[in-house]
């Protein structure tokens, strides 16, 4: 709470702009199934901005995306939120020392698996879908999201990280 109170106007504007970037790229790439920059962006923000600001960006994004796609509710929203919030939490704790782009790309695949498998919970317990059927049907979509997350982190993380350094955007609240 103290940290939230210490956020400057600059930080609030930064969070708002980066939330818009996450939302717009998702809509812009919606013509391609499961191809988006969201996991890459959340990995980048987690590393450069820390848990607090990244969590705020994720919260804003999940709410706006839910409102925009009419999916805001118990079936999807909590699982999207948990799936994404795992990234800043783990990258700033247990994976804090991971720094190579290739390792981060593989972590992107792990985050995609966590994100996708979380949806097994509502599909099985709320929509009563057979778990094996769901997992099999979801394999191509998971592979697509995993490969797009892997490729975007591999290609874009380093230059984007350098850009953040150049613009002096960091974890300082």
């Amino acid at each position, binding site marked *: 709470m103290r940290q939230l109170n210490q956020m400057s106007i600059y930080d609030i504007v930064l969070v708002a702009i980066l939330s818009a970037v996450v939302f717009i790229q998702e809509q812009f790439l919606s013509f391609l199934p499961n191809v988006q920059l969201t996991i890459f962006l959340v990995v980048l923000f987690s590393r450069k901005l820390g848990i607090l600001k990244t969590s705020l960006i994720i919260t804003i994004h999940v709410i706006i995306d839910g409102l925009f796609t009419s999916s805001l509710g118990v079936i999807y929203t909590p699982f999207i939120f948990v799936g994404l919030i795992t990234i800043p939490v783990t990258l700033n704790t247990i994976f804090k020392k991971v720094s190579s782009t290739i390792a981060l790309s593989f972590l992107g695949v792990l985050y995609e698996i966590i994100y996708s498998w979380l949806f097994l919970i509502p599909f099985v317990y709320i929509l*009563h879908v057979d778990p094996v059927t769901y997992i099999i*049907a979801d394999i191509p*979509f998971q592979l697509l999201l995993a490969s797009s997350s892997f490729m975007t982190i591999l290609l874009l993380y380093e230059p984007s990280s350098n850009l953040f350094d150049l613009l002096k955007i960091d974890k300082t609240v």
Partner: protein
Amino acid sequence: MQQKLPKILYFIIALIIMIGSILVINNQESATSNGQLTIEILAIDDTVISSKSVNFFKGDTLKQIIEDNFDDVLFESSSFGPYLTGIEGYVTPSDFSTYISIYIDGVYSTVGIGQIDIRDNITITLKVESNQ
């Protein structure tokens, strides 16, 4: 250069997986033999709008079968394949407050119209459901 090699290799592998997945997702299932299936349309309150037993033939897609046997059929092309937005007088509103969900033999379908395996004697239920 030595540092870049693994990156290029990983990138190529990921690209191949990505292209393969897109091809699998966009590939529409078609009937592998002739047969008969039942398609029923349910309103939001579970009343039956329409129910028909229809014959299908080898090579037919479910999209074709629906278009040939029902009125006011509207499909939108989506990144996940054909997306049914209207049938028998119902049209999905622009805010998606209601939509058409698919059940196969009473079980919620995890795949869209384009990926449903067309088999003899199955019942496909197209049910209007609310997002709220």
